[in-house]
């Protein structure tokens, strides 16, 4: 059951997302995107996913905003508008199909917090009941991420590291590659 303020936040998320796309000045676009992430973080917090909200706030609203700002130091902050009607129509069409598929898939999702839903009946009840006893960690999310699902977290960290290596190889100056 969604409350009134959830709908308000959802509206703000959509408005800021559209604003970030349509604003011409890239500096304003970056800040609008930060606002979008912040509203999304509030929405996560409202749904009870506090750890996700925290990550969204520091990564979405914090770090990626900083990256965009540093990238703006290196380029012009006015968007160059190119009219490529065919590409735009193709993007609109494929995004429309993607949106339809996502909405179609969301029909089968269980109601949030439903104890009879399939995810709640599987391993999660064991985590909720036993994690404090088994890992001495009150925050279940930390226990699941770092212990029960530690291998996944190792994979995630490796993905981030790989992204860092890719950026390093793409952006480093060629002249010091010999040293």
């Amino acid at each position, binding site marked *: 059951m969604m409350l009134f303020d959830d709908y308000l936040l959802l509206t703000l998320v959509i408005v800021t997302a559209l604003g970030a796309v349509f604003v011409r000045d890239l*500096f304003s676009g970056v800040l609008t995107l930060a606002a979008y992430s912040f509203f999304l973080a509030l929405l996560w917090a409202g749904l009870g996913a*506090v*750890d996700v*909200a*925290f*990550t969204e706030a*520091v*990564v979405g609203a*914090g*770090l990626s905003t*900083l*990256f965009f*700002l*540093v*990238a*703006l*130091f*290196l*380029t*012009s*902050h006015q968007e160059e508008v190119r009219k490529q009607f065919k590409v735009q129509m193709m993007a609109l069409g494929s995004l429309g199909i993607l949106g339809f598929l996502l909405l179609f898939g969301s029909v089968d999702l269980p109601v949030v917090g439903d104890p009879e839903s399939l995810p709640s009946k599987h391993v999660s009840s064991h985590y909720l009941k036993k994690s404090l*006893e*088994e*890992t*001495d*960690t*009150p*925050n279940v*999310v*930390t*226990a699941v*991420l*770092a*212990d029960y699902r*530690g*291998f996944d*977290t*190792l994979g995630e*960290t*490796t993905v*981030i*590291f790989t*992204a*860092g*290596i890719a*950026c*390093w190889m*793409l*952006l*480093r*100056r060629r002249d*010091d590659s010999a040293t």
Partner: protein
Amino acid sequence: MIRPHDSVIVHTLARVFIPIIQLFALYVLIHGHDSPGGGFQAGTLFAASFILPVIAFGIQGSLTVLERRAIILGGIGILLFAGIGLIPLLLGEEFLNYGELPIPGMEASARRHLGILGIEIGVTIAVAATAVSIYYSLRERGEGEGN
């Protein structure tokens, strides 16, 4: 082109906020067992505290060799993570089974608690070093192009 702001307020606030962000990142890391947060968030906060100065003070000077190779530290973080996971494996248990870490005088749950802290530190180092390295790469690209 965006130029750094020469306002005294911005400079002073940046100087005050950078150590506070780092202290908060440390809190998020160590307190991750009891409250929301953990390695990813702490690493991101640490990285932000290193990147914030450029917003306030602008790009100045060229990078040192250490800064160009910051990505290596990210690898060390992952090795710390995988290394802690490897200890139980070498002792004949499952990979990443912290309950079997060879720490005497502790219950299995306390060893798991410690193992979680250890890998969170590894995640923090990896995430922070990677993010800072991406930032340094961007800055390196900007060098010698009229900045």
